[in-house]
């Protein structure tokens, strides 16, 4: 089938774009009501869950992956230590809310500058250390974070190894029409059937409220990142990644931009940490170690490096693919029954298979599939396929 050609800026193009956007907005609006009571689709005898808890976590992860993307995807500095910044954000939020009774959102006032500063501080020595050496040093940063949290001197603030339980809940205000929206959605044919018939419990209401809050923070973060990438400094970041010497001789201040990339990355990671704290009301040190850092890299690459949509996909992939891997108990077609620590094996094989299918990540894979259906071309190059 030859793909349909759509000329950029044409009426058809605008309509396709409009349809895209509407689909996005409708999905974002309806999704939490569909999965607040988790869906349990069954595939090949395996029962998988899709719940709002995971969706909320995935949104936070998407922002964390976005933070890594700025640094690694767009600027080419491989970091295996971004969990350090996420953890810093999460603990700042948790500590301020629990110990000093701030509201969740107001902690961003502290999280943003502090994480930015830490990122810049880490970014300066990183100027001299490159490539895999940088990856290894940042890996150490990730490895040491849980230990730092557990230091006795910080115990009052972090509550040490038992984790920080944040008692303050994020309660939706009375005027928020959560139940009303639910009723309205139930009237939509087909989709409405998925939402069940129960009224939501207060826990589910809280999760829905948290969802919309997280979506707004995530939207702001992605918008910020998008504008940064499209701006002059953003182009400088990419130029440095593609050819450092070339960028330097064209007058780009390497030190400034590379340290700046660390700063921006840490900032977004810190925000992601705040989002995780909002989602879980709980922060624990051992969760924010090397595993977290490694799965951020998984999210980045599986989603699609140097691609903003890739970060969103990557965040969801990390959460759901991991969960579904452990929920796979029967191997389709072969009929093996899996018990015990097979989840990791399924995950490992899935990751390898995914890289074979889409070596550039899911985002690029989807673009490729879309390009079989239609292609958007600039108005003055009618008919010629864009390359790359």
């Amino acid at each position: 089938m030859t793909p349909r050609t759509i000329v950029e800026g044409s009426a058809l193009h605008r309509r396709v774009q409009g349809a895209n956007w509407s689909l996005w907005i409708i999905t974002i609006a309806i999704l939490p009501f569909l999965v607040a009571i988790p869906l349990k689709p069954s595939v090949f005898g395996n029962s998988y869950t899709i719940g709002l808890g995971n969706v909320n976590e995935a949104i936070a992860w998407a922002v964390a992956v976005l933070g890594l993307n700025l640094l690694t995807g767009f600027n080419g500095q491989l970091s295996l230590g971004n969990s350090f910044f996420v953890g810093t954000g999460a603990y700042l939020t948790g500590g301020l809310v629990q110990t000093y009774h701030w509201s969740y959102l107001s902690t961003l006032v502290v999280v943003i500058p502090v994480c930015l500063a830490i990122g810049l501080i880490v970014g300066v020595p990183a100027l001299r250390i490159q490539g895999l050496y940088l990856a290894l040093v940042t890996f150490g940063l990730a490895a040491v974070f849980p230990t730092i949290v557990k230091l006795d001197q910080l115990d009052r603030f972090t509550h040490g190894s038992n984790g920080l339980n944040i008692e303050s809940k994020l309660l939706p205000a009375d005027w928020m029409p959560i139940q009303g929206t639910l009723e309205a959605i139930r009237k939509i044919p087909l989709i409405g059937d998925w939402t069940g018939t129960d009224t939501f419990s207060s826990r589910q209401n809280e999760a829905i409220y948290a969802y919309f809050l997280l979506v707004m923070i995530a939207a702001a973060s992605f918008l910020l990142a998008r504008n940064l990438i499209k701006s002059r400094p953003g182009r400088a970041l990419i130029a440095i990644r593609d050819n450092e010497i070339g960028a330097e001789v064209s007058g780009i201040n390497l030190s400034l931009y590379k340290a700046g990339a660390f700063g921006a990355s840490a900032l977004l990671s810190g925000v992601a940490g705040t989002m995780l704290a909002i989602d879980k009301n709980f922060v624990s040190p051992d969760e924010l170690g090397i595993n977290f850092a490694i799965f951020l890299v998984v999210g980045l690459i599986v989603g699609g490096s140097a691609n903003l949509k890739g970060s969103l996909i990557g965040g969801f992939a990390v959460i759901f693919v991991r969960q579904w891997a452990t929920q796979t108990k029967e191997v389709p077609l072969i009929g093996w029954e899996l018990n015990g620590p097979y989840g990791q094996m399924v995950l490992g094989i899935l990751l390898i298979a995914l890289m074979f299918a889409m070596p550039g990540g899911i985002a690029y894979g989807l673009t490729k599939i879309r390009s079989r259906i239609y292609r958007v071309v600039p108005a003055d190059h009618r008919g010629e396929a864009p390359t790359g």
Partner: protein
Amino acid sequence: MFLLAVSVDTDPELLLARVLDGLRFGSGYGALALALVMIYKATGVLNFAQGELALLGIYIAWALSVGWGWPIIIAVILAMFATATLAAGIERTIIRPFDPSNHLPLVIVTLGLFLAINSFVAVTWTTDLKALPSMFPKGNVFAVGVAHLTWSGLGMFITVLVMLGAVTLLLNRTKVGLAFRAVSSNIESAELVGIKVGQTLQFGWALAAAIGTLAGALLVPELQVLDPNVMLSTLVFAFAGAALGGLDSPKGAVIGGILVGLIRNVVVQSVSFIPSELSVGAAVFVILLVLLVKPSGLFGSSKVVRV
């Protein structure tokens, strides 16, 4: 410099004990770092699965020696062959199809391998603790108070040096070594002098897996007991050793590994203000300082920019 400003334990017996510990564990980290360096030289990729290939080798050696009652040395040698073969197969089937110049998918592939092999070991042999017999006699060469040198520690140290010598000879005095160095220096030119790049890389993977298995078989008896997470926790220190020594230098890997062992056992333990639970952090900090002065590690070649 700043170390002098704080109190340092000076009991000579304790210092000797720590130095001996450091050399013992450090040579194990060095051996593992050597395996990492071989892969890095071959592909420019940090192989997350390196430790797990070694883990598989260790469990195969365990199964052969404890399960089937074979002598441990034979078990280890067979395990080295087994993992080398497996690594060669992995290279051929799931590494070679990828574009070698794009490292990101390869990172995920090795990570996937890491998860799959680790899980395979846990499922096959369970996560219960096991003990891998040492290839060396039990007991101490000498002991002074808490300081003691075990035969296995001495044996490990010597074996690692011999291993380094053998790898150096192999790389510098044999044709396959020349091919390996040529490929790691410039893939395209290597092709143009008639070197079969794929097979050479495959050889690198197999060699690295065999070295890793031997390293694990040396180190694990020093750790008393074995479980499927044992290589993950040593790998952090092996990574650090490789970075400290220089990622492309076999000699640097071994020396770097030993230095990391000494940092962890001597420096972190002796200097009062470093909490010992921060051992990883302290090691990383020292490496950071070294890299700031010498960005390609102590023995690494500062990369000639390839056009």
